[in-house]
Protein backbone atom coordinates (compact mmCIF):
# COMPACT_ATOMS: atom_id res chain seq x y z
CA UNK A 1 0.00 0.00 0.00
CA UNK A 2 2.70 2.44 0.99
CA UNK A 3 5.06 1.51 -1.85
CA UNK A 4 3.12 3.31 -4.56
CA UNK A 5 1.68 5.95 -2.31
CA UNK A 6 3.23 9.21 -3.48
CA UNK A 7 0.77 11.65 -2.00
CA UNK A 8 1.39 13.00 1.47
CA UNK A 9 -1.12 12.24 4.26
CA UNK A 10 -2.21 15.88 4.13
CA UNK A 11 -2.96 15.57 0.44
CA UNK A 12 -5.09 12.51 1.04
CA UNK A 13 -7.00 14.05 3.91
CA UNK A 14 -7.71 17.34 2.22
CA UNK A 15 -10.99 17.20 0.37
CA UNK A 16 -11.09 13.44 0.14
CA UNK A 17 -12.72 10.60 2.03
CA UNK A 18 -14.80 7.80 0.54
CA UNK A 19 -16.99 10.25 -1.40
CA UNK A 20 -13.99 12.27 -2.61
CA UNK A 21 -15.57 15.43 -1.34
CA UNK A 22 -14.46 16.04 2.22
CA UNK A 23 -16.79 17.51 4.83
CA UNK A 24 -18.95 19.49 2.43
CA UNK A 25 -21.77 16.96 2.62
CA UNK A 26 -21.71 16.92 6.40
CA UNK A 27 -22.44 20.62 6.39
CA UNK A 28 -25.15 20.45 3.72
CA UNK A 29 -26.81 17.54 5.52
CA UNK A 30 -27.15 19.80 8.60
CA UNK A 31 -28.28 22.77 6.55
CA UNK A 32 -31.00 20.79 4.76
CA UNK A 33 -32.12 19.17 8.04
CA UNK A 34 -32.59 22.59 9.64
CA UNK A 35 -34.60 23.70 6.62
CA UNK A 36 -36.41 20.37 6.64
CA UNK A 37 -38.14 20.88 9.99
CA UNK A 38 -40.40 23.81 8.98
CA UNK A 39 -40.86 22.33 5.50
CA UNK A 40 -42.04 18.97 6.92
CA UNK A 41 -44.47 20.83 9.17
CA UNK A 42 -45.67 22.72 6.09
CA UNK A 43 -46.10 19.49 4.11
CA UNK A 44 -48.05 17.86 6.95
CA UNK A 45 -50.41 20.85 7.21
CA UNK A 46 -50.95 20.88 3.43
CA UNK A 47 -51.66 17.13 3.29
CA UNK A 48 -54.13 17.37 6.18
CA UNK A 49 -55.86 20.29 4.49
CA UNK A 50 -56.23 18.24 1.29
CA UNK A 51 -57.47 14.99 2.86
CA UNK A 52 -60.79 13.87 1.45
CA UNK A 53 -61.13 16.77 -0.97
CA UNK A 54 -62.17 16.32 -4.58
CA UNK A 55 -59.62 16.26 -7.38
CA UNK A 56 -60.67 19.73 -8.55
CA UNK A 57 -60.16 21.18 -5.07
CA UNK A 58 -56.78 19.45 -4.67
CA UNK A 59 -55.62 20.82 -8.04
CA UNK A 60 -56.69 24.34 -7.12
CA UNK A 61 -55.06 24.30 -3.68
CA UNK A 62 -51.78 22.63 -4.75
CA UNK A 63 -51.50 25.09 -7.61
CA UNK A 64 -51.98 28.20 -5.48
CA UNK A 65 -48.71 30.15 -5.15
CA UNK A 66 -48.02 29.88 -1.42
CA UNK A 67 -48.78 26.14 -1.28
CA UNK A 68 -46.82 25.43 -4.47
CA UNK A 69 -43.79 27.34 -3.17
CA UNK A 70 -43.77 25.39 0.11
CA UNK A 71 -44.16 22.11 -1.81
CA UNK A 72 -41.35 22.98 -4.23
CA UNK A 73 -39.03 23.99 -1.40
CA UNK A 74 -39.87 20.75 0.42
CA UNK A 75 -39.21 18.66 -2.69
CA UNK A 76 -35.89 20.31 -3.58
CA UNK A 77 -34.60 20.44 0.00
CA UNK A 78 -35.60 16.83 0.64
CA UNK A 79 -34.14 15.63 -2.67
CA UNK A 80 -30.73 17.04 -1.78
CA UNK A 81 -30.95 15.77 1.82
CA UNK A 82 -31.88 12.24 0.78
CA UNK A 83 -29.27 12.16 -1.97
CA UNK A 84 -26.53 12.85 0.58
CA UNK A 85 -28.09 10.47 3.11
CA UNK A 86 -28.35 7.52 0.74
CA UNK A 87 -24.82 8.17 -0.51
CA UNK A 88 -23.62 7.95 3.10
CA UNK A 89 -25.43 4.63 3.56
CA UNK A 90 -23.94 3.28 0.31
CA UNK A 91 -20.42 4.33 1.26
CA UNK A 92 -20.81 2.73 4.70
CA UNK A 93 -21.98 -0.67 3.52
CA UNK A 94 -20.79 -1.21 -0.06
CA UNK A 95 -17.05 -1.62 -0.38
CA UNK A 96 -16.83 -3.38 -3.71
CA UNK A 97 -16.00 -0.70 -6.27
CA UNK A 98 -18.40 -1.95 -8.94
CA UNK A 99 -21.40 -2.14 -6.61
CA UNK A 100 -20.47 1.12 -4.97
CA UNK A 101 -20.24 2.96 -8.27
CA UNK A 102 -23.45 1.41 -9.61
CA UNK A 103 -25.32 2.31 -6.42
CA UNK A 104 -24.02 5.87 -6.38
CA UNK A 105 -25.16 6.32 -9.98
CA UNK A 106 -28.52 4.74 -9.18
CA UNK A 107 -28.90 7.02 -6.15
CA UNK A 108 -28.35 10.12 -8.25
CA UNK A 109 -30.70 8.93 -11.01
CA UNK A 110 -33.46 8.06 -8.53
CA UNK A 111 -33.23 11.38 -6.70
CA UNK A 112 -33.15 13.42 -9.91
CA UNK A 113 -36.10 11.53 -11.43
CA UNK A 114 -38.26 11.68 -8.28
CA UNK A 115 -37.32 15.28 -7.53
CA UNK A 116 -37.86 16.43 -11.10
CA UNK A 117 -41.13 14.53 -11.51
CA UNK A 118 -42.60 15.90 -8.28
CA UNK A 119 -41.43 19.44 -9.09
CA UNK A 120 -42.82 19.22 -12.61
CA UNK A 121 -46.19 18.10 -11.25
CA UNK A 122 -46.32 21.14 -8.94
CA UNK A 123 -45.34 23.47 -11.79
CA UNK A 124 -48.00 21.98 -14.05
CA UNK A 125 -50.61 22.39 -11.32
CA UNK A 126 -49.48 26.00 -10.88
CA UNK A 127 -49.32 27.08 -14.50
CA UNK A 128 -52.08 24.83 -15.77
CA UNK A 129 -52.76 23.30 -19.20
Amino acid at each position, binding site marked *: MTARQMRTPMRRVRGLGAARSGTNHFWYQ*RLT*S*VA*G*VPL*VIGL*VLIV*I*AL*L*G*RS*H*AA*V*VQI*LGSPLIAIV*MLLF*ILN*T*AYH*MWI*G*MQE*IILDYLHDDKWKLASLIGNTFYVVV*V*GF*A*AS*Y*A*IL*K*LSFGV
Partner: protein
Amino acid sequence: MAELEAGTTHRARPLSPHLQIYKPMLTMTMSIVHRITGAGLYFGMALLAWWLIAAASGPNAYADFEAFAGSIIGRIILFGYTWALMHHMLGGIRHLIWDTLHGLEPADREMLALMTIIGSIALTVLLWVIGFLAMGGSR
Protein backbone atom coordinates in the same frame (compact mmCIF):
# COMPACT_ATOMS: atom_id res chain seq x y z
CA MET B 1 7.71 -19.94 1.40
CA ALA B 2 4.04 -20.27 0.60
CA GLU B 3 3.34 -20.45 4.28
CA LEU B 4 5.37 -17.34 4.91
CA GLU B 5 3.55 -15.50 2.16
CA ALA B 6 0.18 -16.53 3.50
CA GLY B 7 1.35 -15.52 6.94
CA THR B 8 2.36 -12.07 5.82
CA THR B 9 -0.55 -11.31 3.53
CA HIS B 10 -3.30 -12.64 5.80
CA ARG B 11 -1.87 -11.78 9.16
CA ALA B 12 -4.59 -11.43 11.75
CA ARG B 13 -4.63 -7.81 12.72
CA PRO B 14 -6.26 -6.48 15.86
CA LEU B 15 -9.80 -5.43 15.07
CA SER B 16 -11.75 -2.76 16.83
CA PRO B 17 -14.79 -4.25 18.59
CA HIS B 18 -17.93 -4.05 16.48
CA LEU B 19 -21.58 -3.82 17.47
CA GLN B 20 -22.04 -7.44 18.55
CA ILE B 21 -19.71 -7.03 21.50
CA TYR B 22 -21.82 -4.37 23.19
CA LYS B 23 -24.98 -4.85 25.17
CA PRO B 24 -27.85 -3.50 23.04
CA MET B 25 -28.76 -0.05 24.22
CA LEU B 26 -31.57 2.34 23.48
CA THR B 27 -29.27 4.98 21.99
CA MET B 28 -27.64 2.60 19.52
CA THR B 29 -31.04 1.24 18.52
CA MET B 30 -32.15 4.81 17.90
CA SER B 31 -29.08 5.38 15.76
CA ILE B 32 -29.89 2.57 13.36
CA VAL B 33 -33.62 3.37 13.44
CA HIS B 34 -32.76 6.91 12.33
CA ARG B 35 -30.93 5.47 9.34
CA ILE B 36 -33.67 2.94 8.57
CA THR B 37 -36.41 5.57 8.72
CA GLY B 38 -34.28 7.79 6.48
CA ALA B 39 -33.97 4.99 3.92
CA GLY B 40 -37.71 4.32 4.18
CA LEU B 41 -38.53 7.97 3.57
CA TYR B 42 -36.12 7.93 0.61
CA PHE B 43 -38.24 5.35 -1.16
CA GLY B 44 -41.42 6.89 0.20
CA MET B 45 -40.67 10.05 -1.78
CA ALA B 46 -41.76 8.08 -4.85
CA LEU B 47 -45.25 7.95 -3.30
CA LEU B 48 -45.27 11.71 -2.85
CA ALA B 49 -44.22 12.08 -6.49
CA TRP B 50 -46.98 9.66 -7.55
CA TRP B 51 -49.55 11.68 -5.58
CA LEU B 52 -48.50 14.96 -7.20
CA ILE B 53 -48.22 13.52 -10.70
CA ALA B 54 -51.65 11.92 -10.30
CA ALA B 55 -53.12 15.26 -9.24
CA ALA B 56 -51.48 16.95 -12.23
CA SER B 57 -52.58 14.21 -14.66
CA GLY B 58 -56.32 14.35 -14.07
CA PRO B 59 -59.30 12.93 -12.15
CA ASN B 60 -58.82 9.32 -13.28
CA ALA B 61 -55.15 9.16 -12.29
CA TYR B 62 -56.02 10.85 -9.01
CA ALA B 63 -58.79 8.33 -8.34
CA ASP B 64 -56.24 5.53 -8.85
CA PHE B 65 -53.96 7.08 -6.28
CA GLU B 66 -56.84 7.62 -3.86
CA ALA B 67 -57.87 3.97 -4.27
CA PHE B 68 -54.35 2.91 -3.33
CA ALA B 69 -54.03 5.38 -0.46
CA GLY B 70 -57.42 4.38 0.93
CA SER B 71 -56.78 0.63 0.77
CA ILE B 72 -55.63 -1.33 3.80
CA ILE B 73 -52.11 -1.76 2.39
CA GLY B 74 -51.97 1.90 1.39
CA ARG B 75 -53.05 3.05 4.83
CA ILE B 76 -50.50 0.82 6.55
CA ILE B 77 -47.76 2.23 4.30
CA LEU B 78 -48.91 5.81 4.87
CA PHE B 79 -49.13 5.25 8.63
CA GLY B 80 -45.60 3.86 8.58
CA TYR B 81 -44.50 6.77 6.41
CA THR B 82 -46.01 9.24 8.90
CA TRP B 83 -44.22 7.59 11.80
CA ALA B 84 -40.91 7.38 9.90
CA LEU B 85 -41.20 11.08 9.00
CA MET B 86 -41.92 12.13 12.58
CA HIS B 87 -39.22 9.86 13.97
CA HIS B 88 -36.60 10.99 11.48
CA MET B 89 -37.51 14.64 12.09
CA LEU B 90 -37.26 14.33 15.89
CA GLY B 91 -34.11 12.21 15.56
CA GLY B 92 -32.66 14.90 13.31
CA ILE B 93 -33.46 17.60 15.86
CA ARG B 94 -31.67 15.40 18.42
CA HIS B 95 -28.62 15.35 16.16
CA LEU B 96 -28.78 19.13 15.78
CA ILE B 97 -28.85 19.46 19.58
CA TRP B 98 -25.77 17.23 19.76
CA ASP B 99 -24.06 19.39 17.15
CA THR B 100 -24.19 22.24 19.65
CA LEU B 101 -22.38 19.94 22.16
CA HIS B 102 -25.46 19.74 24.39
CA GLY B 103 -27.23 16.59 25.56
CA LEU B 104 -24.23 14.32 25.21
CA GLU B 105 -24.10 13.04 28.83
CA PRO B 106 -25.37 9.46 29.34
CA ALA B 107 -28.54 10.49 31.16
CA ASP B 108 -29.27 13.21 28.57
CA ARG B 109 -28.78 10.77 25.70
CA GLU B 110 -31.20 8.30 27.22
CA MET B 111 -33.75 11.03 27.81
CA LEU B 112 -33.44 12.37 24.25
CA ALA B 113 -33.83 8.85 22.88
CA LEU B 114 -36.97 8.28 24.95
CA MET B 115 -38.38 11.66 23.94
CA THR B 116 -37.80 10.79 20.28
CA ILE B 117 -39.69 7.50 20.52
CA ILE B 118 -42.56 8.81 22.63
CA GLY B 119 -42.75 12.01 20.59
CA SER B 120 -42.79 10.24 17.23
CA ILE B 121 -45.54 7.80 18.28
CA ALA B 122 -47.60 10.56 19.91
CA LEU B 123 -47.29 12.86 16.87
CA THR B 124 -48.16 10.04 14.46
CA VAL B 125 -51.31 9.10 16.37
CA LEU B 126 -52.24 12.77 16.76
CA LEU B 127 -51.83 13.46 13.03
CA TRP B 128 -53.96 10.45 12.08
CA VAL B 129 -56.70 11.46 14.51
CA ILE B 130 -56.66 14.95 12.99
CA GLY B 131 -56.59 13.38 9.53
CA PHE B 132 -59.64 11.23 10.17
CA LEU B 133 -61.48 14.19 11.66
CA ALA B 134 -60.57 16.29 8.61
CA MET B 135 -61.83 13.60 6.24
CA GLY B 136 -65.06 13.25 8.20
CA GLY B 137 -65.63 16.98 8.33
CA SER B 138 -64.89 18.43 4.92
CA ARG B 139 -65.78 15.75 2.38
